[in-house]
């Protein structure tokens, strides 16, 4: 594997994991524009644990994941009091607080950033991305995932059906936080360096776009979305011009017009699913003629 492709695969793996962390809340109807903040907690958590405290690598990951999950759990309560665009702003503000703390805390390297000594090569990143993908697919196939998707569509009816909306949403934030923590820890150990400027609002916007452009209705969405966002700018690089981000922006706008519900929708997955080719044909046609 060439260095170029190894670099692309590493960032793609981190992006896939990161996208799933945001997807877990988005699938239950909550938009999180604070992705960079959650990822930063994971990255700085393990950086401090391994480099400053000298703990082993596994402990760094354990701390990164648990710490981010715990912070997400706590932040879920005030954030879930808000709705729609206010939730987007609340999570955005949270991310700004995290990056501000990192910037002004000398123990975390401040504006100079922090070197991370333990290195993780690209393969564990790829395997982690596959593992997280499988985990989220499983989650969405479970009854818990069914409750998440029901909440996304109609919170009132889900509640009448017995779904504990608050508990499901807090659980989603916590699971999303754990996954974001993992993505941050992998980032820190692969690139061996963390700095507050990296965890910028732009990163939060990009990861939310991975999810929204990919589609929130199925677990395929974030996977396709992050592949699209990571690889398309690279292919556009082949053209060799500085216009590639302009073209990329135009592609994003076009996607929103052509596929407002995301690249992958529930109906598309149903259409492409092999099991459906053999399914009995619905008699809905007869009924629709009657009406």
């Amino acid at each position: 594997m060439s260095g170029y492709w190894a670099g692309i695969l590493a960032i793609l793996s981190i992006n896939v994991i990161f996208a799933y962390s945001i997807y877990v809340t988005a699938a239950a109807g909550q938009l999180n524009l604070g992705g960079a903040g959650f990822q930063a907690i994971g990255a700085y958590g393990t950086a401090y644990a391994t480099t400053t405290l000298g703990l082993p690598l596994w402990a760094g990951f354990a701390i990164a994941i648990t710490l981010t999950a715990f912070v997400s759990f706590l932040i879920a309560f005030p954030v879930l009091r808000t709705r729609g665009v206010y939730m987007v702003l609340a999570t955005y503000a949270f991310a700004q607080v995290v990056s501000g703390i990192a910037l002004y805390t000398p123990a975390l390297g401040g504006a100079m950033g922090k070197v991370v000594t333990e290195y993780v090569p690209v393969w564990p990143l790829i395997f982690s991305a596959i593992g997280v993908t499988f985990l989220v697919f499983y989650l969405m196939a479970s009854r818990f995932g069914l409750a998440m998707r029901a909440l996304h569509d109609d919170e009132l009816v889900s509640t009448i059906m017995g779904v504990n909306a608050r508990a499901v949403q807090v659980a989603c934030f916590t699971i999303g936080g754990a996954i974001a923590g993992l993505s941050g820890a992998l980032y820190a150990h692969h690139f061996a360096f963390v700095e507050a400027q990296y965890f910028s609002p732009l990163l939060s916007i990009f990861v939310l776009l991975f999810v929204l452009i990919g589609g929130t209705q199925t677990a395929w969405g974030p996977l396709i979305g992050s592949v699209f966002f990571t690889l398309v700018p690279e292919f556009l690089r082949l053209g060799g011009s500085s216009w590639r981000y302009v073209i990329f922006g135009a592609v994003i706008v076009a996607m929103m017009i052509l596929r407002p519900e995301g690249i992958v929708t529930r109906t598309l997955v149903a259409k492409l699913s092999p099991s459906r080719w053999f399914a009995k044909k619905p008699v809905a046609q007869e009924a629709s003629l009657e009406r």
Partner: protein
Amino acid sequence: MSAEAILSLRGVSKAFGGLKVIDDVSFDIPKGERFGLIGPNGAGKTTVFNLISGVYPIDAGQVVLEGNDISTLPSRKRIRNGLSRSFQNIRLMPHLSVAENVMLGQHSQALGLLDLMTPVGWLPRQRFRREADAALARAGLDIDPGEVVSNLPYGIRKKIEVVRALMSKPRVLMLDEPAAGLNPRETADLAAFLKTVSDQGVTLLVVEHDMSFVKNLCERVVVLNFGSKIFEGTLAGAQADPAVREAYLGTRRVA
């Protein structure tokens, strides 16, 4: 009478701002009965449903289910006590398949973490999925359970909502205009299906404007007008009652 009542409203009132929409409404529904709630548009029928199912808190009075005051019970817990409902405008989850919508109706039957973590989407032979398929078959719905509901015709979706409400194994099933928008054959099929549900001991509380459907299905009715109960008895009695006639048709003087 009230000793065998499965669901009772006792002096229930509700105001939105300064507007009193439900004013001191009381009635008892005996166990196993098919009970109709009728009245002109805006009489407060759907609001009564929303108060019974806990969508809004009540201002005064009590909602009593099987002898227990459930007035302050959160809406998500009422379904566990045997109270299930459908909605006036179809409120199926548009992005979920038929089977998933029906399985959502089983949510209150799922116990503990193990049930919550069962990958129902991957196991077509799993208990929950088999129950859902069987319930669809019992309702005479010969459709692909994997179909996304937003692609299905109105009459089918309307019936899926009733099936979903039944999945929680309710003792009281509340249906808000189940026959609205159905053609005469679909309406007759629905009434026949609801009678089989009733025969299994489920108490029915039905809001409906289609009087022939109510006549066919309901043993007793309560008539609401402007948030107050104006009649309780048989449908034939209601149709002969001067106050009910006035509520629907206006006073003779005006006409």
